[in-house]
């Protein structure tokens, strides 16, 4: 896809999301607002994973760790009476970015299956740390008594305001992402996936750039975690459980790896399916599973590649 067409498709997706509150009001289903806000929050997480998974070819199965760190970065200050989003959210971004730096510095020394296992192990380690710290809710987690305070008219307790704040953050992420992947940095990250040995031979040390991408992806996912606790008004260590990492990865693969719109579409498809199917059966994943198999077999570019003009880059 040319940069221009890619930008157009992204803007179309954002436009559709912007119209959701209106649709929800028209059909008198305020629940849609809640559902699509959740979709956008997971879209942020999925886009962040796609930076390393789809563009960089780093198969991390521990991405939910940053979701959890971001959630704790909101809930723990809130516990101590600090409710400002301007403290909580940057904290979420910085802490999960630092976690990404540490986890990446160790796990990026491995590759292939070892890399998958070590990222999984780090996330599970954090999960077990989470369930063992009683003052922070332990296994049960804890309620978020007050949503993050942005100040001024931006009151997240208003579902519409919260919706558009999340949409604005997703939009910024997509538009910045759109620049980054074509800039020098993104070019190197895509080259990492293509041929790491060649990259070293022409004089670019892959490790530094992989690590930077890994930490950046963690930081962005941390923001998604901060939003997620505000969405659920609850924090639970299960945000970091490896099955959650799997969910995010499924969103990316379902929607289309190596695209920006794909993970957004994937998050929507995943959560809408969950929503619709789980009303019929608790075994809704028995339907999701075969669907994923079909996408992987017949639409390797994911759902995004099936859209008009949504063919994969390059």
């Amino acid at each position, binding site marked *: 896809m040319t*940069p221009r067409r890619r930008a157009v498709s992204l803007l179309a997706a954002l436009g559709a999301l912007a119209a959701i509150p209106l649709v929800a009001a028209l059909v008198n289903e305020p629940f849609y607002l809640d559902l699509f806000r959740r979709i956008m929050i997971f879209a942020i997480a999925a886009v962040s994973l796609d930076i390393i998974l789809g563009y960089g070819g780093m198969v991390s199965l521990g991405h939910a760790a940053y979701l959890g760190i971001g959630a704790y970065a909101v809930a723990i200050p809130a516990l101590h009476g600090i409710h400002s989003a301007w403290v909580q959210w940057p904290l979420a971004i910085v802490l999960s970015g630092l976690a990404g730096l540490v986890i990446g510095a160790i796990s990026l020394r491995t590759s292939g299956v070892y890399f998958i296992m070590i990222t999984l192990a780090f996330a599970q380690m954090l999960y077990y740390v989470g369930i063992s710290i009683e003052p922070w809710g332990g296994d049960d987690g804890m309620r978020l008594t007050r949503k993050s305070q942005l100040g001024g008219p931006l009151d997240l307790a208003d579902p519409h305001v919260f919706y558009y704040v999340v949409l604005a953050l997703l939009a910024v992420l997509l538009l*910045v992402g759109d*620049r*980054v992947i*074509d*800039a*020098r*940095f*993104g*070019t*190197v990250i*895509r*080259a990492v996936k*293509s*041929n790491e*040995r*060649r*990259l*070293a*031979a*022409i*004089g*670019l*040390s*892959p490790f530094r*750039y992989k690590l*930077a991408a890994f930490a950046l992806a963690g930081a962005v996912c941390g923001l998604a975690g901060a939003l997620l606790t505000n969405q659920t008004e609850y924090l639970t260590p299960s945000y970091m459980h490896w099955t959650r990492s799997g969910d995010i990865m499924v969103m990316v693969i379902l929607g289309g790896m190596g695209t920006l719109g794909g993970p957004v579409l994937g998050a929507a498809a995943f959560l809408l399916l969950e929503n619709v199917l789980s009303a019929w059966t608790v075994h809704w994943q028995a339907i999701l599973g075969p669907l994923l198999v079909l996408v992987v077999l017949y639409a390797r570019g994911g759902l995004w590649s099936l859209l008009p003009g949504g063919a994969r880059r*390059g």
Partner: protein
Amino acid sequence: MAEPLLQVRGLRKRFGGLVATDGIDLDVAAGETLAVIGPNGAGKTTLLAQLAGDLRPDAGTIRFAGADVTALPAAARSHRGLARSFQITSIFRDFSTLDNVALAVQAHAGHSFRFWRPAHAERALREPARAILEQVGLGARGEVPAGTLAHGEQRQLEIAMALATRPTLLLLDEPVAGMGLEESVRMVELLRGLRGRHTIVLVEHDMDAVFALADRISVVVYGRVIASGRPEAIRANPEVRRAYLGEEVSA
């Protein structure tokens, strides 16, 4: 005598029970083209991989441009002026041909922690890359995905990417391998144009190419250099003829 540009001493690499390079000594003077020949499995590619920094030797030293680079990784050696082409074509297949070369230029044009400006809009990367594509004869193929280039063109792209790093020493691993007659004649022409401007270590099986390009030849058999010298001397060396050249010369 001044120190040679590349000085290899006692280079040894073992894979389990197999000794791939068994104490290799090499000197390559600045501006010279040294061909390394030898039968399959003699350890030539392993030698090159150690020179480029892809493989760590078990023992021995590599000095390049007056400094010990034995412990330097490949990317750092590239910045010292060492460039390599691969025996099995190694390119960014899903990038365009021009993007491949532009990335090699980018690797030597400041850091790549730049997040905003599209790399394909940086004239400082694109223009040198275009010039190099012209030089290797791929000028018309810049916008094509590199993976769809013909085999011979991909070999030319290998050379282009090496040149884009502005190397003093080129390590070329069988640049004419798998090429048709016409293609290999063109490649030899291209490499002839690089002689003198770059110091070259050439690993090659094609004897026509070797004798057309080499100032000196080193013959490697079972991981050891059994003879080194001018092409005429190597051609006449009875030990070399017996070990390796014999059949090919008479053929």
